[in-house]
């Protein structure tokens, strides 16, 4: 029953990882940018929610209404002002720029907020759970996280497949120069895609903060690695694959946690490396290119 419980918790944890991975996947799929600062963007989202709560007393759910679009706008401008220029300079430059951002954010956060955890209380949501069977309870928050993750992936999939903007994004991923010949400024399309990635990252960051009861400046580094691992385990280019990858990672971590509380991160990393060696294309074959 302990194992079953860990399995279920792991699957639900996978929802969080999938949410973290989704933004990374969008940025890579459409812009070919690997955003090394992705985890930091998530952290910033969580910090904004925490600050809104501590200074204005705004409820977490309410703060999402501001935080998510706000980081979307930030993503739009980061793309337009920094990354677009970097993209024109070659393959290394976008990486180096995002790495620079990944260094700036946590250190600035430590200086501004110290290394203490900034609380994101959720009332009794964090402790509420549903009993499925004897000894098997699932938390309401993890369940909600998984639900949101699934909805986000489905929504993103639909958005890319069905809307005009989604079509432009896929076309820009294929051939941005030709898209320009069709009267569409690919730089705007890229910027919207990055805005979307940032907004989803912020949402994921807030959910992470709720789960952990708060956020620290060091979380971004963990999150970017989790997100990346979920993307690779799931298989590049598949949005549903990120969910599968997230679940594999989540299960690996929670099962390892049953053995020893020190093991989850190490085992998660080792599972990732094993997948990389044994099945480098990921566990889900990609059909849709994104």
């Amino acid at each position: 029953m302990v194992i079953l419980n860990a399995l279920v918790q792991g699957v639900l944890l996978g929802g969080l990882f999938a949410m973290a991975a989704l933004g990374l996947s969008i940025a890579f799929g459409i812009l070919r940018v690997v955003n090394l600062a992705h985890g930091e963007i998530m952290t910033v989202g969580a910090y904004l929610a925490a600050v809104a709560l501590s200074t204005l007393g705004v409820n977490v759910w309410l703060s999402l209404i501001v935080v998510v679009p706000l980081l979307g706008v930030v993503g739009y401008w980061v793309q337009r002002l920094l990354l677009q220029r970097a993209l024109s300079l070659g393959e290394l430059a976008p990486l180096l720029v995002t790495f620079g951002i990944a260094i700036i954010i946590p250190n600035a956060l430590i200086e501004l907020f110290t290394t203490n955890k900034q609380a994101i209380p959720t009332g009794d949501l964090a402790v509420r759970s549903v009993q499925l069977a004897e000894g098997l309870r699932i938390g309401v928050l993890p369940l909600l996280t998984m639900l949101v993750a699934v909805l986000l992936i489905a929504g993103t999939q639909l958005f890319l497949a069905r809307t005009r903007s989604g079509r432009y994004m896929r076309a820009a991923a294929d051939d941005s120069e030709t898209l320009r010949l069709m009267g569409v400024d690919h730089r705007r399309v890229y910027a919207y895609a990055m805005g979307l990635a940032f907004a989803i990252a912020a949402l994921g960051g807030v959910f992470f903060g709720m789960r952990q009861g708060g956020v620290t400046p060091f979380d971004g580094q963990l999150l970017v690695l989790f997100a990346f691992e979920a993307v690779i385990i799931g298989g590049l280019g598949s949005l549903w694959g990120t969910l599968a990858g997230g679940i594999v990672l989540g299960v690996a971590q929670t099962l390892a946690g049953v053995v020893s509380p020190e093991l989850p991160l190490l085992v998660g990393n080792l599972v990732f490396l094993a997948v990389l060696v044994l099945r480098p294309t990921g566990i889900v074959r990609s059909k849709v290119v994104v």
Partner: protein
Amino acid sequence: MTALLAAESISAGYGDSRAVADLSFALEPGEVLALVGANGAGKSTLLRVLAGAHRPSAGRVLLHGEDVTHVRDFERNRLGVCLVPEGRRLFASLTVRENLEVGAGSRRDGRWTVDTVVDALPMLGDLLGRNASQLSGGQQQAVAIGRGLMSNPEVLLLDEVSLGLAPIVIDELYASLAAVRGGGLGIVLVEQDLERTVAVADRLVCMLEGHAVLSGTPASLSRQAITDAYFGHEVTPW
């Protein structure tokens, strides 16, 4: 009367090499103007200059008499100049229908919609749901032309329509081209296939090493003159 599209003393190139040298011509509404010349004569570069995808080192591009030389490619498309690029360049992960829809990115009004494009290019009819990467070369070219039309252009720039295609497919494409014409649409056609070009064009401009060396209506130009211009005077074919 001002021309629909005019090139005035255009020079353009890449780095130190000059692909187009001091070239001028004018395109009237409803006209098909063909640029002929051997590989490397600068035809594609010229089309890219006209579309705003390549910046000329000298000269002006005028649309309805207005200087659009510095109007960028996506904005120029919105003004009604559309390039169907060499190599088709379809969006490989999109379906044919989606490719056409992206072609309407400039949102200009006009007679071209997915339905009318399919009427003009009947070979697209059964392909709308297919992925662009699964098409044959001829089908891809038809989609590329249709996608270009979707922006309801006033000027359509067609680069190397028949390149790499089987003669029977080329026949079909050129037959469709007749249906595409009309409504004042001006077409600049770049083609290496002299035979086709002479048959379809209202006017020819022969380019040699970036220069316009000969121009006129197909009827007014002798085959020998065109061939000479095509290869240059000193080059003996084979």
